[in-house]
């Protein structure tokens, strides 16, 4: 995962790293303490608050983003650890104001209620369809095992992923 050498800077006794990423197609470069989680970096340093924090212990999946094309829980990764990578967050899915087919499907089939889990669900589900174009119900449920929803009961989420599979 480590793509390039990190530049270490010491500010007020805290070890800082210069973090360079491509986030949603835009190059960003910022200094952040070494122990900054990718989720914190996205939300607090880049103000991309679409990536939600539900548990901060890699259980709930609300913080899933794509790093170099694979879904991961951004609270499991240090920002410095993915230095040099391409990151896609929920904010990066639309094209010219048009929702991504997965977002459309969640909207159409009521794959959400409060919406807290939704960014992570959508990011995970897109990664599933990248890897498996026509997943069965079981494969969808299996893949979304690490994405917890406290509202919907999952039925409509599974239906939305199946619908998106016909459009993607």
């Amino acid at each position, binding site marked *: 995962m480590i793509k390039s050498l990190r530049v270490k800077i010491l500010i007020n006794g805290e070890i800082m790293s210069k973090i360079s990423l491509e986030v949603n197609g835009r190059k960003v470069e910022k200094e952040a303490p070494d122990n900054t989680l990718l989720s914190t970096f996205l939300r607090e340093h880049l103000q991309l608050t679409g990536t939600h924090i539900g548990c901060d212990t*890699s*259980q709930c*999946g609300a913080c*899933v983003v794509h790093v170099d094309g*694979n*879904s*991961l*829980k951004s609270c*499991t*990764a240090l920002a410095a650890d993915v230095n040099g990578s391409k990151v896609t967050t929920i904010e990066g899915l639309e094209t010219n104001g048009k929702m991504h087919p997965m977002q459309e499907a969640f909207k159409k089939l009521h794959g959400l209620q409060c919406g807290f889990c939704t960014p992570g669900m959508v990011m*995970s589900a897109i*990664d599933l369809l990248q890897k498996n174009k026509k997943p069965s119900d079981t494969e969808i449920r299996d*893949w979304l*095992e*690490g*994405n917890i929803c406290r509202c919907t009961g999952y039925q409509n989420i599974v239906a939305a992923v199946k619908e998106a599979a016909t459009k993607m």
Partner: protein
Amino acid sequence: MSSLAEGIGDPQVRNRGTIGGSIANNDPSADYPSACIALNATIHTNERKIEAAKFFKGMFETALKKGELIEAIEFQIPEKSSYQKHPNPASRYAIVGVYVAKHKGDVNVAVTGAKSCVYNDKEMSKALSGNFSSSSIDGMDLDSSEMNSDMHASADFRASLVVTQAKKAVDAC
């Protein structure tokens, strides 16, 4: 081994976690330590080679010294083997997991989740080395005095799960 790996956490957890990190952490309910014990693994570090039986020291404790890094893990290919676990439904960690491996001379029955550290169950190994059939361990009454007891499972339930999972593993071999 591959089905063990597929049962760890969820896809996103698996996209990040490594086997080296898992065995260095030696969580009492982690899956990989049982594979190391069952398949007589040798842990290669930047300093030496350590046999699995001497690697896992206790709860979250290993033989690794400060700064020592795991570089490779070598497994002995068994004649037959299977790993079966009763997962915690939320995290998928093993409430109890049993890795049975039949080698030429003997059988290893590596148990995770049941005690403070992974271990090879000598009683079941002996029974299965004599007769490799789930009937030879059926109804075995394991001592539960050192088994974990928490909100997920009592020690007695764990003791019974060890036998059930071991039987399932033998049948799946």
